[in-house]
């Protein structure tokens, strides 16, 4: 029982095909079995076209699998409609993308607040406190009112990380979060993931091309041609 409560995510025979039912139907994920537990800090590696992004979109409930079952926080998701998956995504998952993807019309603070505003409407004092605290934690307390285009790439990515964490998700998914940053900034951003994983206990799954980055993660998952070929604990 205690085993189950530690489990954040479980995949059983997860499959994804494109062009379903058409002559050019292609299966890109051929039955993935995977479990991610609280506190996990995992890297997902693999060559281009191996299905990493597809898998990440499925894990984040942005996309629906064509086979198998995905259980998030003990809730099977195969029968859920779009609204149900959106609600679960909003509360359980934080996303960080390669290109920071902030909403240009809003300040840094409002961008951080966005997931809370979408879920609950007008932010209350508690929400504001939490957003400010997160901005401070990523070192951007001074830039709360700045617009995204007034921030550097690294700063924008840090705002995106704060946004991903504001709902206190059980799972943080990052797609090449440092791919667009110089080495020093990338190192800083990576340190943030580490810190939040350690301090808040949220599971982190990073998609990365960078072998140095994956080497510093606790666990490395390797995807080749739509199959999980290795799942190793580092050190």
């Amino acid at each position, binding site marked *: 029982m205690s085993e189950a409560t530690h489990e954040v995510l479980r995949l059983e025979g997860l499959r994804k095909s494109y062009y379903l039912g058409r002559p050019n139907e292609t299966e890109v994920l051929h039955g993935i079995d995977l479990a991610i537990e609280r506190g996990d800090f995992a890297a997902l590696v693999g060559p281009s076209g191996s299905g990493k992004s597809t898998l990440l*979109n499925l894990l*984040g409930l*942005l*996309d629906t699998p064509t086979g198998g079952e995905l259980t998030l926080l003990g809730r099977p998701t195969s029968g859920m409609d*779009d*609204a149900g998956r*959106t*609600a679960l*995504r*909003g*509360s359980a998952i934080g*996303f960080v*993308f390669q290109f920071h*993807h*902030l*909403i*240009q*019309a*809003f300040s840094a603070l409002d961008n951080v607040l*966005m*997931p809370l*505003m*979408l*879920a*609950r*409407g*007008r932010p209350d004092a508690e929400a504001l406190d939490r957003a400010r605290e997160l901005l401070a934690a990523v070192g951007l307390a001074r830039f709360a009112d700045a617009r995204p285009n007034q921030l550097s790439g690294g700063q924008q990515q840090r705002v995106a990380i704060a*946004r991903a964490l504001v*709902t206190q998700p059980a799972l943080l998914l990052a797609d090449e979060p440092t791919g667009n940053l110089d080495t020093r900034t990338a190192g800083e951003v990576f340190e943030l993931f580490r810190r939040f994983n350690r301090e808040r206990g949220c599971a982190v799954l990073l998609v990365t091309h960078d072998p140095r980055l994956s080497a510093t993660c606790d666990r490395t998952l390797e995807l080749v041609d739509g199959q999980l070929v290795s799942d190793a604990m580092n050190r």
Partner: protein
Amino acid sequence: MSLPLRGLWTEWTLAVAFLREGRAQSLMIAVGVAVGVAVIVFIAALIQGLQANIIERTLGTQAHIRLLSPDEVNRVLPPPAGTLQLVQEDRRAQRLRSINNWQQVSATLDRLPDLEAVSPVVSGPAFARRGEAVVSVALTGIDPARYRRIIPLEQYLVSGRLRVGADDAMIGKRLADDLGVRVGMKLRLETGQQHSRVVNVAGIFELGVRELDSRYVYLDLKQAQSLLALPGGVTVIDLTVADIFAAERIAERVGRLTSLKAESWIETNAQLMNALTAQSLSTNMIIVFVAISVAFGIASVLSVSVVQRTREIGILRATGATRRQILRVFLLQGALFGLLGSVLGSAVSYLLVWVFNTFGPGLFYIPVPPVLVVAALLLATLTGLLAAAVPARRAARLDPVVAIRYV
């Protein structure tokens, strides 16, 4: 949906932020909507003002409803069963007759809530003679206190006083000119029944309708009754109603109630009403087509905006926005375009109306009824909302996976 108001706060914030960010675009479409709304409000106010003016002028000189004795008809005895009856019938000539029991009818009508004024009148043909000149006139015997509520004669008086009775009469301006009489002069009135009387011209009026000004002679009831050989009788009961466009319906009801022939002004001015209806129709068509073009303007701007914001829509979906929330953000933007544009447009239409009233031909004054402005605001906002439906649906249906990768 369980917390619609609290939920809408976020959509509202997003919609306003998106509008602000695309400032130039928003401003252009708002101006586009404003031009449309200004045209709609101005034309509607102009036509309403014009029609109100025409109707006021028309009704200023006639009753809304006239009650007359029913036509006299020949009665044919029914033939015994099995007999074929051939009838050759000449319609009866309609002689001047009094309304039966008119005092009681009038008292009953006084109590009807739909009616504003009830005025029994006796009217019939006569000749006015001065020296060698003879003019055919329409004698009208009135109770001035009641009749003034049907036609406010005091407003039309050009000389003399509003006084009938005791040998005093009031005549139309053209008639006075034709006979060369002024206030204080005498006039002989003759009717076909060999009655004749000399009256004193107490007042001269000008109703502004040629036919009336050259024929009308007002007396009091008694004098007219005796001249027309209808002692104690009246031939017509004039009525006014509060809602002039309900005249037809009320006429029918009053007709049934009194068993008299009831003619409403709408019936007697059928041509005018036709013209007004045609005019309203063309105004409504202008309004509908302007509204349609405004709707397409809003829809096209929002369609472009959905494409421009594809990636942001994807981000919002990834951070927990539901399809409904995305839908509402874009619907709200459409409604806001409509509202902003119509506020601006209403202001412009006020200016246009002011210019028309101040520097225009000055034939009549156009009021801008606040109801019209409120209606325009609502119509434009609703149009914006409807116009946004298609782009908003497209935004809501975007696949977040595809949208996020959109560059």
